[in-house]
């Protein structure tokens, strides 16, 4: 990251003349805000880093370099930098102290405009800070060489949310019809942190508790507890396991380790340190995630610290990297940087390596990354910058939108040939959203991208690590931190999943064309079905990462579906989308009423496609629809708003807050509304009684750290940047009404 020295121009700022068309003013009052901001007339007093969204949309008629300055006052020093982002180009601003409340101007950076769709300009205060003095902010000023090039633009209207059911706008709740699952936990809740096969029928897994466990898959009884055998212990928070030619490698908290049984007595007496050539602290959130071996190198990712980030926004050098270590020499290379919580690494199509990362600071959504040498994936903190840091990040192959299809994605794995139509696709577990998600990848102009599909929920626990046997059996293990037995029981353990081959009707793949997207289904559509463009509810957006939690959806809008063309074999539908642009996500919903030729209804009807590149010369074919195919007896989607709150709860809250009183990470919502609770008031640092009414619920969603319920930790991220005003209202109403039932 190239840091800008703060250029403080010590002069009284004259209000820019409206007639001076080289200048565009972005006034504080013009921001779209979903956060907690305090106003003093036209001035925004910024005292809280979390939750404030200070942004504007502007339009340019031509591409050119413009200079952005800020008009502000800040009487006392801040201990962290601001982020300024201009259509995805990041800079940091070290705030210089001003004379009292005198207004000053500082140059924030030079950025490049582009004509066309509106661009987002965003000023982001430091994360996790609450100051006893404000940074007083009045306006940004953009100076462009060409008079009249820039104008303010209105943010697009956030699309309405169609009514939702499981798999159709709401999270799945059941097991995929073509899967069977057997809970192998028995009486022991293994907290599985790494998994690999040693030989075709011996499953090895590491545990959060530091054990290495062996399971002879041929000895698993038809019922009862499998014969788990602990073969090593004392590992330090291992989070990855790989086996190469019988050699066992573990990625522990701070080092890559080979376990050696030199005398062959069955006990691993030597823990060889393969490498630890990167800085580490004792922060709880620093892990080495995952482990795969390719060409005699162990690949894994090291996560960033959260404890020291939350207090000082600092990181040890090289945190957030994918590392590559030679398994014999220990020679270590940094492959890529800018990762946050990359809790999953695995092989993708054609020998590629895939990495997942979790939404949060600098990650506006969860990611499935196609690992590229020297790529930078955007998480940053403070100097010293990662050697691969750059203002524009490398996008993921696939965005996994938070709360929509992922919350904490874990290990990705290729589906084997025995998995019928899904073979060659990627599945991903999730440590909070649960279930398995499916991803179809394609390469467009040399760049990997693709679509994420809901696949299956309905398992007894969550999945952190997954392994396929040669026969196509999937073993999936779940992990939990902490010592709460009820929580551990919900999320940890081992499950065997088998694909039965049962035909299931669902969207199978999506391929981008120059003028739209082609959807492939697992079965032929019913005659005359699929032709009506109104049957596809399409929205699209870009992402803006912020140093505060959550980030932004940019230009979130409904997309025009100009036509729908069904292929002659009725297995594919081409949707003509005139508004396609690169670096956006397209969400497509398909109604439950669509049936297959043999009368099957859809298992799911939605997916998210990440557009990194729009293919230049690969148009989809558009054919006129048969007249009969355009007739619709009733609308394909309804917009009653009734389900919005429930969907928001399922997608954003359910992982941590139950409705039935059962224990999860956060307090249950059962009997919450209207009740009196004791909460720690962060503004005073003392506990006080609060009534859980609409205002309290709303505040707790926007700013959860303000009042933390007694007995719980302040670990909930603020949702202000994630939910629209309408969604926030719907969620609050749902939580209140749920209590009345």
């Amino acid at each position, binding site marked *: 990251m190239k840091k800008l020295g703060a250029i403080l121009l010590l002069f009284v700022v004259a209000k820019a003349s409206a007639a001076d068309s080289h200048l565009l003013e972005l006034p504080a009052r013009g921001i779209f805000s979903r956060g907690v901001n305090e106003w003093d007339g036209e001035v925004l007093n910024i005292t809280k880093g979390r939750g404030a969204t200070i942004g504007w949309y502007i339009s340019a008629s031509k591409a050119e370099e413009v200079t952005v300055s800020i008009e502000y006052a800040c009487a006392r020093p801040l201990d962290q930098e601001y982020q300024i982002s201009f259509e995805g180009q990041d800079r940091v601003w070290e705030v210089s102290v001003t004379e009292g409340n005198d207004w000053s101007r500082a140059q924030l950076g030079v950025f490049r405009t582009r004509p066309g769709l509106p661009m987002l300009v965003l000023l982001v205060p430091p994360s996790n800070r609450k100051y006893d003095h404000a940074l007083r902010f009045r306006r940004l000023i953009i100076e462009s060489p060409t008079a009249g090039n820039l104008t303010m633009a209105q943010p697009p209207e956030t699309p309405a949310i169609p009514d939702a059911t499981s798999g159709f706008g709401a999270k799945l709740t059941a097991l995929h019809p073509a899967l069977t699952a057997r809970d192998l936990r028995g009486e022991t809740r293994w907290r599985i942190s790494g998994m690999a096969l040693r030989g075709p029928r011996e499953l090895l897994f590491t545990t959060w508790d530091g054990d290495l466990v062996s399971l002879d898959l041929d000895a698993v009884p038809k019922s009862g507890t499998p014969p788990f055998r602990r073969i090593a212990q004392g590992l330090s928070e291992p989070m990855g396991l790989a086996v190469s030619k019988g050699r066992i490698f573990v990625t522990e908290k701070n080092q890559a380790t080979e376990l050696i049984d030199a005398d062959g007595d069955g006990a691993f007496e030597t*823990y*060889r340190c393969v490498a630890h050539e990167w800085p580490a602290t*004792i922060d709880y959130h620093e892990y080495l995630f995952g482990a795969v071996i390719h060409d005699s190198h162990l690949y894994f990712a090291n996560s960033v610290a959260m404890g020291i980030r939350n207090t000082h926004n600092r990181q040890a050098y090289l945190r957030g990297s994918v590392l590559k270590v030679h398994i014999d020499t*220990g020679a270590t290379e940094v492959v890529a940087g800018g990762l946050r919580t990359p809790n999953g690494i695995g092989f993708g199509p054609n020998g590629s390596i895939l990495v997942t990362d979790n939404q949060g600071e600098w990650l506006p959504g969860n990611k499935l990354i196609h690992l590229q040498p020297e790529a930078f994936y955007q998480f940053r903190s403070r100097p010293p910058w990662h050697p691969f840091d750059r203002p524009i990040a490398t996008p993921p192959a696939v965005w996994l939108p938070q709360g929509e299809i992922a919350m904490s994605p874990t290990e990705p794995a290729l589906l084997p040939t025995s998995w019928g139509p899904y073979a060659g696709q990627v599945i991903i577990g999730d440590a909070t959203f649960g279930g398995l998600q499916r991803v179809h990848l394609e390469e467009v102009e040399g760049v990997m991208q693709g679509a994420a599909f809901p696949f299956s929920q309905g398992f007894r626990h969550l999945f952190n690590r997954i392994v396929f046997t040669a026969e196509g059996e999937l073993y999936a293990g779940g992990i939990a931190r902490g010592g709460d037995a009820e929580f551990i029981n919900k999320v940890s353990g081992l499950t065997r999943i088998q694909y039965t081959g049962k035909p299931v009707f669902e969207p199978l793949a999506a391929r981008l064309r120059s003028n739209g997207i082609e959807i492939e289904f697992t079965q032929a559509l019913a005659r005359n079905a699929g032709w009506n463009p109104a049957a596809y509810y399409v929205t699209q957006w870009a992402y803006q990462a912020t140093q505060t939690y959550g980030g932004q959806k940019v230009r979130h809008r409904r997309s025009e579906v100009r036509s729908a063309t069904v292929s002659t074999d009725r297995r594919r539908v081409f949707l003509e989308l005139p508004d396609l642009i690169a670096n956006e996500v397209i969400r497509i919903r398909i109604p439950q009423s669509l049936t297959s030729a043999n009368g099957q209804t859809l298992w799911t009807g939605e997916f998210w496609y990440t557009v990194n590149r729009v293919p230049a010369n690969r148009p989809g074919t558009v054919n006129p629809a048969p007249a009969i195919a355009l007739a619709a007896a009733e609308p394909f989607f309804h917009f009653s708003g009734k389900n919005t709150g429930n969907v928001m709860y399922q997608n954003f809250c359910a992982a941590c807050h139950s409705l039935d009183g059962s224990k999860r990470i956060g307090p249950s919502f059962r009997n919450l509304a209207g009740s009196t609770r004791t909460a720690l008031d962060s503004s005073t640092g003392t506990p006080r009684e609060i009534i859980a009414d609409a205002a309290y619920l709303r505040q707790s969603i926007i700013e959860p750290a303000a009042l933390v319920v007694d007995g719980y930790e302040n670990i909930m991220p603020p949702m202000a940047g994630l939910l629209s005003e309408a969604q926030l209202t719907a969620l609050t109403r749902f939580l209140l009404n749920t209590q009345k039932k």
Partner: protein
Amino acid sequence: MVLLLSLCTRAADGLPFDRSAINRYSLDGLPRSISVRQGKDVWLGYDLERATLRKVWRAPRGKSGLTGGFTTRSVGKTLFEDKSDAGWSLAKTGQTSGLKVRYLGCTQRDGHFELRWELQQASRKFRLKERVPTTADDQVTVWREMKVEGLMAGESLQLPAVVSAAWKTAGGRSVKALAGKQWIRIIIP
């Protein structure tokens, strides 16, 4: 309840690296460290990045000498502590030079716990080994053994000053440097 019991009472099964005797979590703020118990209650805590013994302490009677999860803290009476940044140095023909340290791993077998490091000075590499007997010697407070492999004639490996000041041979002699190929036993009487 069944779950809690299974988590808490998992039987020791004779495997090396039993955490009640060998703790590979952080120690007193050192992210890369190992704590080794000698006898019933004496602990030796190593700084793996410096290849040095950071601390020796005796656990309170009837209690563990360690507390916490990954961020482990030592508990008990301090018997030796090296808070300096001093490290090993290579001595040759009256000149000493600092060394780059690389931790190589550890082994538990035959009643002792062994740690290994690679020390490097320019293109010269050699190995330092340290052995901690896991049983106590009733005659001394604590004992350990060290040796170096790969030194050339005329070279010696100088101990950090705080170590040579506190640790002696069984005969009470100070050890300022390692040379040769033998294990050198040093103790705190």
